[in-house]
């Protein structure tokens, strides 16, 4: 079709793509076009019923005074106004932020060295990889329940084990004081979740062409320099992905606080999701809970956009 005289084929703009997509062009055999729609229909129905409708509803509910029983009453933006002065919610958000920062730094402090450790070919490397990863496949619920037992002052493992090592001289009830309970939960999450980051960083490290490392070492790059100028720029993408996963999970943390300390000594460990659940399903203020959900959702979307932007800048490298 392209005659020699025709101008050089222009690259499709997004408008062309959208136009063609709208017309459903370029399909297989014409009469089978409906089959494509039919094939994705079940997915679309499920997603609409249990994702899109709830998403719209949560916005709608947030504009109401919505008790569990009784008639919802439209109150406009009043829930959002209440939120601004709700110190409990801000405390919960602050706690989630603090937890996210601490746990993410802790996970990377553990995952980075271990990823380098299992990247080098060495005896038993397969065993090491599996061992570091295994706790990831447990549920957070199982891991939390396990931790409650291990931290127990009377018959848990940590007190006698640390006493045997001479690090403490009498049993400690880890979960009774805010600080030690917080540390205990951080240790649990690092133990359970580091494996994901290790594997992701490992994938990134393995994708670096060996010639590049050789060239760098011939040029005399050593330790930190090699990491700073060669390794890190090349794994920034996987690093960012591991970061996104860790941050998102931590912002939404709930199970560990609910199971391990039920909100913590003196309510010191009510995370944002915990507070939303309490508002909706303990105080039965569904409308206000919905408004809090919207706030959390907005925070996460902003975080995702920031992180996607970080991911995008990596593309050119």
């Amino acid at each position, binding site marked *: 079709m392209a005659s020699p005289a025709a101008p050089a084929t222009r690259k499709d703009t997004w408008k062309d793509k959208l136009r063609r*997509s*709208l017309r459903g062009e370029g*399909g297989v055999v014409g009469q089978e*076009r409906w*089959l*494509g*729609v*039919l*094939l*994705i229909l079940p*997915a*679309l129905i*499920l*997603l609409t*019923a*249990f994702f*899109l409708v709830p*998403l719209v*509803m949560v916005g709608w*509910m947030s504009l109401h005074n919505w008790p569990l029983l009784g008639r919802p009453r439209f109150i406009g933006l009043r829930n959002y106004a209440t939120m601004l002065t709700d110190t409990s919610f801000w405390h919960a958000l602050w706690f989630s932020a603090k937890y996210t920062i601490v746990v993410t730094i802790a996970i990377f402090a553990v995952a980075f060295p271990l990823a380098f*450790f299992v990247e080098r070919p060495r005896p*038993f490397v397969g065993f*090491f990889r*599996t061992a*570091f990863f*295994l*706790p990831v*496949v*447990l*549920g*957070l*619920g*199982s891991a939390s*329940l*396990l*931790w*409650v*037992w291990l931290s127990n002052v*009377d*018959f*848990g*493992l940590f007190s*006698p084990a640390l006493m045997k090592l001479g690090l403490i001289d009498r049993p400690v009830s880890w979960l009774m004081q805010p600080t030690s309970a917080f540390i205990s939960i951080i240790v649990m999450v690092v*133990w359970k979740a580091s494996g994901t980051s290790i594997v992701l960083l490992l994938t990134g490290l393995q994708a670096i062409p060996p010639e590049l490392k050789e060239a760098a070492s*011939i040029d005399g790059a050593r330790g930190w320099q090699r990491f700073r100028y060669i390794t890190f720029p090349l794994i920034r993408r996987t690093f960012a992905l591991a970061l996104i996963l860790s941050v998102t999970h931590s912002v*939404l943390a*709930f*199970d560990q606080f*609910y*199971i391990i300390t039920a909100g913590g000594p003196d309510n010191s460990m009510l995370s944002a*999701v915990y507070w*939303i*659940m309490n508002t*909706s*399903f303990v105080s039965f203020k*569904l409308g206000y809970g919905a408004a809090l*959900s919207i706030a*959390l959702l907005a925070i*996460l979307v902003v975080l*995702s956009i920031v992180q996607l932007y970080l991911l995008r800048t990596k593309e050119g490298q």
Partner: protein
Amino acid sequence: MAASRRSPFALDFAQQCLGFVIAALFLAPLAWTALSSLKPAAEAALPPLPPWPSRITYETYQSLDGFGSGLVTHTANSLFVALGTVGLSGIVSLLAGYGFSRFHFPLKNVIFVLIISTMMIPYQSLLTPLFLILSWIGLSNSLVGLVLVYATLQLPFSVFMMRNAFEAVPREIDEAARIDGCGGVRILTRIMLPLVAPGIITVSIFAFLASWNEFLAALILLTDNKLFTLPILVTAVRSGQFGTVDWGAVQAGVTLMMMPCLLLFLLLQRYYMRGLTAGAVK
């Protein structure tokens, strides 16, 4: 110069030893729980050193069986939810993956991006409306309702994985089949199914682990004791909702919950890793 960068033997050995110590730290809590669950009930409330039981018994499992509606019921609940989620999300994403990979229809790319972008929205923020929707359609406090919710939550990831699986199959294969007179559906069932089996396995593992382990939605959406899944049952035992806190029963419950996950992972590691790293590579 290359020789100077090679670690001396002693350093290698030290690193290797350190590796084993760290590996032991990662594995110890799992091993400790599994071993403790086999101790006689009286030993469950004693300090867990040494870790091995003086004699192997199933007393902790028997006492766990005494809570709620019994171990068989609650394990069956968990299995129903997990296998239901695997089946439903597997079939739905298989069809959708085929549709997105091989057919063209209006708004195709828009819909695909829409499905994938729901991954950014946390289901934790949607639980209140989900609770209401399920009660409107008469599926509140039911395992089927939970399956529908879990399957939906798995969809973005599953559809993405299945589309990639279909994209990896050369188009010449469909074309050949078409020339031989196969229609779209027959191509899927006769020719594609075995070729995308690895994708199906990956999607199934993730669906199983996620739904077997899920806690928050089950906690909110199930109110009937009889319907509790294992994580909810064991949490109830631990918090003393059935009267006494029986730590032996908690150890048995944790062991029961983690074993399928560990086995599934050890058997199908390859497929799990494929799913985990798909995002990193792509």
